């Protein structure tokens, strides 16, 4: 059994995370310093050596702080012991990324999907293939009631008729089978008209709207086929969709590259346009690409996450908060331990299906033919590969076992590991460092907003 407490400072907050229990403590300077000097097992009384080491504080204060930490220790909220969880077996597929279009009406410079083609030519999914993919999902979902299908591409609205037909087919089959599909869609917005907006808002439980932030950043990266910028076309369409969306989920989602390491400005630009559900993420590209994030960029990116966190705290206090996807953290109703250990479920619970009906562990594996798992037309499915993915978790990857952020990260992205390190089980350390920084910022925002709420009460 191991224990692990991660202490850090961020946005003016002093925080201790007790990793096994998930308890998050905001500390005084004295308690923060004390925590650097103690290790389990803790004695009931404050050790004399501690008073000596912390002699700049008065003895009564040192004793009080020690007793507070000791009380958390006794309650299992500090230096708690990690548990060896037993993971459920594989065999169920419940989520599908449906590549209804391997074609795109944009030419984004960083696109991991190769302008929608995934290195295999332009193609739209037929209705027949889409239906077979949904049948595969229903068949493999076992006793799971809640299923998910993301309409993805390329640009899925290039195949809008098939999207509509597939939603209708899914609705019919879910009624017959007593299941429920949550449809989601990821769109670049170019083809969003009133009809598409109303259909998406009525049928899709989540919609991801691709835009990169500031006009100049967006238009440098996200262009139409003729090279012209897309910002002025998509922004009003996204605003219209969000205005009509009611309380259903949505996100504006962008990508940052080496060319806009000041990406906090892009998040803030989207917030200033009235969007309050925002995700901006590091680009996924081979390290040789000039747009790719490099190790030497990390200090700059960390500063940018800090800047963003401080701005979010400031706006929260001003009564105009917004959500940033990677700073969202739920300390009380978050995922169960199984989910925390297994992460995204790619190749096991989650698969992607291409226009040809080929099955891959997720949308990011589609460009790698050796990772093909089967095809919905001939019914093939590599259960051995599924078992391999199912067997991988933060408990089986040595770097993850030792990482303080493991229960928030879930083991990271297997596709990125494969792409950058050549093996799904080898963590891509740049991603690990980014994730750890984001978790620190998320916890600091929690601490700062809780402090404000307390003062305001």
């Amino acid at each position: 059994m191991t224990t692990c407490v991660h202490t850090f400072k961020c946005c003016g907050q002093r925080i201790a995370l007790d990793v096994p229990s998930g308890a998050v403590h905001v500390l005084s300077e004295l308690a923060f310093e004390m925590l650097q000097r103690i290790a389990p097992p803790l004695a009931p009384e404050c050790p004399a050596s501690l008073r000596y080491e912390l002699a700049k504080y008065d003895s009564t204060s040192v004793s009080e702080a020690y007793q507070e930490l000791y009380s958390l220790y006794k309650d299992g909220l500090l230096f708690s012991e990690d548990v060896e969880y037993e993971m459920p077996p594989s065999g169920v597929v419940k989520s599908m990324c449906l590549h209804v279009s391997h074609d795109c009406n944009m030419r984004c410079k960083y696109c991991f999907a190769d302008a929608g083609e995934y290195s295999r030519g332009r193609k739209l999914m037929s209705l027949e293939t889409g239906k077979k993919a949904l049948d595969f999902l229903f068949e493999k979902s076992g006793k799971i009631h809640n299923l998910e299908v993301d309409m993805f591409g390329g640009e899925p609205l290039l195949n809008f008729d098939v999207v509509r037909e597939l939603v209708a087919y899914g609705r019919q089959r879910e009624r017959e089978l007593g299941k429920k599909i949550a449809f989601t869609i990821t769109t670049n917005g170019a083809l969003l008209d009133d009809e598409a907006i109303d259909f998406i808002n009525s049928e899709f439980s989540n919609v991801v709207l691709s835009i990169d932030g500031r006009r100049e950043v967006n238009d440098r990266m996200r262009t139409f086929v003729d090279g012209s910028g897309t910002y002025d076309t998509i922004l009003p369409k996204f605003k219209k969709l969000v205005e009509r969306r009611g309380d259903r989920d949505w996100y504006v989602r962008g990508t940052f590259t080496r060319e806009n390491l000041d990406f906090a400005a892009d998040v803030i630009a989207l917030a200033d346009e009235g969007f309050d559900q925002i995700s901006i993420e590091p680009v996924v590209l081979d390290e040789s690409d000039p747009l790719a994030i490099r190790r030497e960029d990390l200090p700059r990116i960390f500063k940018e996450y800090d800047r963003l966190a401080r701005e979010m705290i400031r706006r929260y206090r001003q009564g105009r908060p917004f959500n940033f996807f990677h700073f969202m953290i739920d300390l009380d109703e978050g995922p169960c331990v199984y989910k925390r250990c297994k992460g995204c479920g790619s190749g096991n619970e989650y698969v992607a299906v291409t226009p040809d009906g080929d099955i891959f562990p997720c949308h990011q594996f589609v460009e790698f033919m050796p990772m093909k798992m089967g095809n919905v037309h001939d019914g093939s499915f590599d259960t051995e590969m599924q078992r391999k993915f199912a067997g991988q978790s933060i408990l089986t990857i040595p770097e993850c076992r030792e990482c303080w952020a493991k229960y928030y990260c879930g083991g990271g992205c297997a596709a990125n590991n494969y792409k950058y390190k050549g093996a799904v089980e080898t963590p891509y350390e740049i991603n690990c460092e980014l994730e750890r920084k984001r978790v620190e910022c998320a916890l600091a925002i929690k601490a700062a907003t809780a402090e404000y709420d307390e003062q305001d009460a």
Partner: protein
Amino acid sequence: MKNVKTLNKTNSAKRAVAAGCGECQASCQSACKTSCTVANQKCLRLTKKSENK
């Protein structure tokens, strides 16, 4: 307490040990598609419980 304020209202990790029902959302479907995280995911069981309160 003067020196420590615990942010969690409950000990979520302990409470969640019994779960693993598999009904929750796949994390990559929510808004990322490129950088997996689970911290922001909801437990469907717990969410339904609090909605029913």
